[in-house]
């Protein structure tokens, strides 16, 4: 305090308060340091944080129902799923137009696949329905064209529909297409629905706009030269069948007014969409199908996570999956249990080796170190395959045991394609990750401690157990965390030698990523794995203390 004048704050040489000057200097330092690590930070962010976050999002994301069935989902809000009745005609009508667009964009099978995870059979239902959705439209098309031949002409349609004031509708339909296909649908259409037609025939205008957007942007054709889709005819029929519009149509004056009025007066097919869908696939008439769609219609769903723990979301809440579909809880349990066994075997095998490494003369220790590191220089695949050669029933180990007479030729040991194989091979492969941290910790324990203990009267064993071992525990901790965390997420080795009994959760994740393409479930499983590892890490910190872990 001798530097202060009076009671004011301490000042730096330039007269500014010392605290402020210090803060400024530190900030500059921090900024410079930040600039230095910025490339690394960016790299970590791009390659690590973003994929993990995207995985987390993917595990709950469920937009596909909403984007594929943008009309159906809101319409279903009015339907009470618990009554045991299928949804009303209105929902089926929306379903028709949604399905029609989806099948044009070939997106309907994706939704089928998604819903199939929750209710088996939906995939094929969506596939067949999408394939013959045109048939429904054709019923109306044929009827309309029979009544008035002008409706066969794309140009006539264009004349009727084109006008001004429908930009809002175009923007809305464009956004739907973009949601559905995940592609940009920007571009000049050469078409704007007229506001009068939109007011008069809302369904037709929407269907025709959908047709126009797809024709111009995706097929790169001219709207006026193309005949409209069947769905447009169906939409026209829907609009015309609506008795509330009859008066308005009669008073319409725009292009093709006479053709519309003629149609309005004629008899159109009475086919309901409910019947039409039942025709396509009878499953559309089942309540549980609709319940599944209803349950999985929100944008975000806990469904993947529930699936990961052998539960499912039904209309009655969360329930256990049927016995024969339960898989993941057991698999998580097995993964944890086997990782624990692998970690323990690594400790048992690695400890003496690390001890030798730390205590042998340098030259011998170096040779040994090379032996420890040698596996790192060989491809993981090669090492695992080598285990295959060793562990087979006709493999080296069995042959040797039979030859030595320990094992009967008829009862050769099954060492592979089960958990034994996975444990053996993974213990070998992860052993260096145990040995190296152990070694580096042991290297820092001076031999004088052992000598001191012995000079104080301890036998070799007591000296080791009371003095050396406790000091090597941080190494065991570090090695165990490494090995355990690596083991829990291991994939290749269990895949090759694990058979069905010896696979880990990661194998299942890989399966969902590359074969079943159920990325959401894979993401949920991965997220659970991540949380599990973090929980174990936290537990370890609570019990042992993470500052007790030394890597060197």
């Amino acid at each position, binding site marked *: 305090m001798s530097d202060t004048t009076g009671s004011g704050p301490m000042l730096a040489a330039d007269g500014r308060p010392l605290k402020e000057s210090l803060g400024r200097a530190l900030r500059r330092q921090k900024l410079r340091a930040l600039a230095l690590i910025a490339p690394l930070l960016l790299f970590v962010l791009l390659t690590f944080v973003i994929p993990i976050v995207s995985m987390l999002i993917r595990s709950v994301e469920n937009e596909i129902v909403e984007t594929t069935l943008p009309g159906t989902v809101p319409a279903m809000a009015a339907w009470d799923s618990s009554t045991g009745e299928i949804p009303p005609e209105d929902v089926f009508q929306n379903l028709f137009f949604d399905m029609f667009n989806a099948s044009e964009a070939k997106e309907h099978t994706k939704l089928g696949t998604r819903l199939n995870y929750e209710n088996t059979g939906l995939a094929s239902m969506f596939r067949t329905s999408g394939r013959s959705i045109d048939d429904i439209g054709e019923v109306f098309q044929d009827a309309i064209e029979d009544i008035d031949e002008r409706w066969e002409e794309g140009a006539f349609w264009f004349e009727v529909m084109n006008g001004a004031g429908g930009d809002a509708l175009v923007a809305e339909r464009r956004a739907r297409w973009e949601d559905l296909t995940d592609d940009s649908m920007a571009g000049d259409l050469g078409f704007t629905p007229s506001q009068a037609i939109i007011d008069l025939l809302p369904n037709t205008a929407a269907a025709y706009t959908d047709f126009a957007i797809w024709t111009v942007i995706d097929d790169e054709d001219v709207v006026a030269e193309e005949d409209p889709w069947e769905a447009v005819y169906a939409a026209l029929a829907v609009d015309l069948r609506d008795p509330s519009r009859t008066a308005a149509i009669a008073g319409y004056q725009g292009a093709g007014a006479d053709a519309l009025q003629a149609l309005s007066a004629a008899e159109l097919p009475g086919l309901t969409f409910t019947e039409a869908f039942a025709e396509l696939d009878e499953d559309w008439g089942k309540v549980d199908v609709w319940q599944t769609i209803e349950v999985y219609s929100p944008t975000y769903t806990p469904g993947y996570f529930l699936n990961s723990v052998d539960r499912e979301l039904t209309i009655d809440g969360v329930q256990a999956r049927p016995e024969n579909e339960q898989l993941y809880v057991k698999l998580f349990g097995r993964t944890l249990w086997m990782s624990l066994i692998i970690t323990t075997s690594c400790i048992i095998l690695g400890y003496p080796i690390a001890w030798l490494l730390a205590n042998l003369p340098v030259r011998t220790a170096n040779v040994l170190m090379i032996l420890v590191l040698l596996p790192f220089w060989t491809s993981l695949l090669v090492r695992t395959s080598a285990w295959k050669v060793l562990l087979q029933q006709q493999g080296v180990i069995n042959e040797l045991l039979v030859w030595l007479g320990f094992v009967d030729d008829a009862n050769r040991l099954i060492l592979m394609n089960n958990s034994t194989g996975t444990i053996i091979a993974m213990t070998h492969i992860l052993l260096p990750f145990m040995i190296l941290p152990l070694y580096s910790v042991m290297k820092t324990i*001076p031999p004088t401690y052992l*000598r001191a203990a*012995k000079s*104080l009267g301890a*036998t070799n064993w007591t000296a080791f157990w*009371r003095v050396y071992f406790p*000091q090597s525990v941080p190494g065991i901790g570090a090695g165990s965390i490494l090995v355990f965390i690596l083991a829990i997420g291991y994939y290749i080795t269990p895949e090759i030698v694990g058979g069905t009994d010896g696979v880990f959760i990661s194998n299942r994740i890989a399966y969902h990523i590359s074969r079943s393409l159920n990325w959401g479930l894979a993401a949920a499983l991965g997220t659970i794995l991540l949380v599990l590892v973090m929980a174990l890490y936290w537990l370890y910190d609570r019990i042992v203390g993470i500052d007790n872990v030394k890597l060197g």
Partner: protein
Amino acid sequence: MADTQNDNSFVEFERVQKSYDGEVLVVKDLNLQMPKGEFLTMLGPSGSGKTTCLMMLAGFETATHGDIRLDGKSINDIPPHKRGIGMVFQNYALFPHMTIGENLSFPLEVRKMGKSEREEKVKRALDMVEMGAFGNRRPAQLSGGQQQRVALARALVFEPELVLMDEPLGALDKQLREKMQFEITHLAHNLGITTVYVTHDQTEALTMSDRVAVFDDGRIQQLAPPDELYEEPQNSFVAQFIGENNTLSGVVTKMEGDKCVVKLDSGEEIDAKPVNVSNVGDRTTVSIRPERVETNKERLSKDAHTLKAEVLEFIYMGDIFRTRLRVGDSDEFIVKTRNAPDQPRLRPGEMIEIGWLPEDCRALDA
């Protein structure tokens, strides 16, 4: 019969040799006898084999040849933990994962001592080194000097008859070291423990020990009480190693009883006491302590030989004056004189005559 003999040779090295690699003898023909209760220091330059000797005694190294006996019994085949020898290591080797109390209680636990007895002994040992309040701390929470005390207490707590200390004060600062030197000697004498102490600090060796063994090149060069070592070095290595020393080399020209005359290489003659020379014509290195050189001719006997010397440097050091002279071929001849009223303060360039009593100048091996 054994008793009397054991009292004089509680610890005994007999013709001990040690080689680590089968090529070089690190310890060559070591012979040593220590009576019970003695404080013996092994002093020597780095690499002279002190630690090796200690380790052989403690049982962590085996002698390549020879016999080591403790209390009359050969201990060559007894494992370290059965020798009952207390040991203080250079870096103390306090177990970092145990508290001070646990460290001290460790040797008692392995001896299967009861809990109450253990606690009492630990307390007594800690009080002995004035560390009674620190029983619950970890070694890392103690200062260097405190760790040192704990290490000492741990080596003593199981009441060994022999304690080995390998440079236990090496890591401490000068002041603390001096304090600890005193405390260690005090403790050792009070408890009547036989102590083998290793250091390469000669002051430490001289102030603490009953006897000092000067090591060089795997051999004991001289084994003697401190005063004898300082005043009567047996060879030029010891003379050089212990304290400050002036050396001049020459040839013996006259021998008469415990006096001889040495003709220096520069041609002048001096008086000396023959120690390692026996014949006229032997080459020799004479050694004179700086404080035994006389600059006042009147204090020397009439027939004493004197040398001409040129003053090169005069350093005032408070209690003494330190003068550097050119004598014969040597520019490094040091004289120390007491700061007394009648003592002249020499100026560089001045020519003086110096001499000494014949018995202060020892003619040693060349």
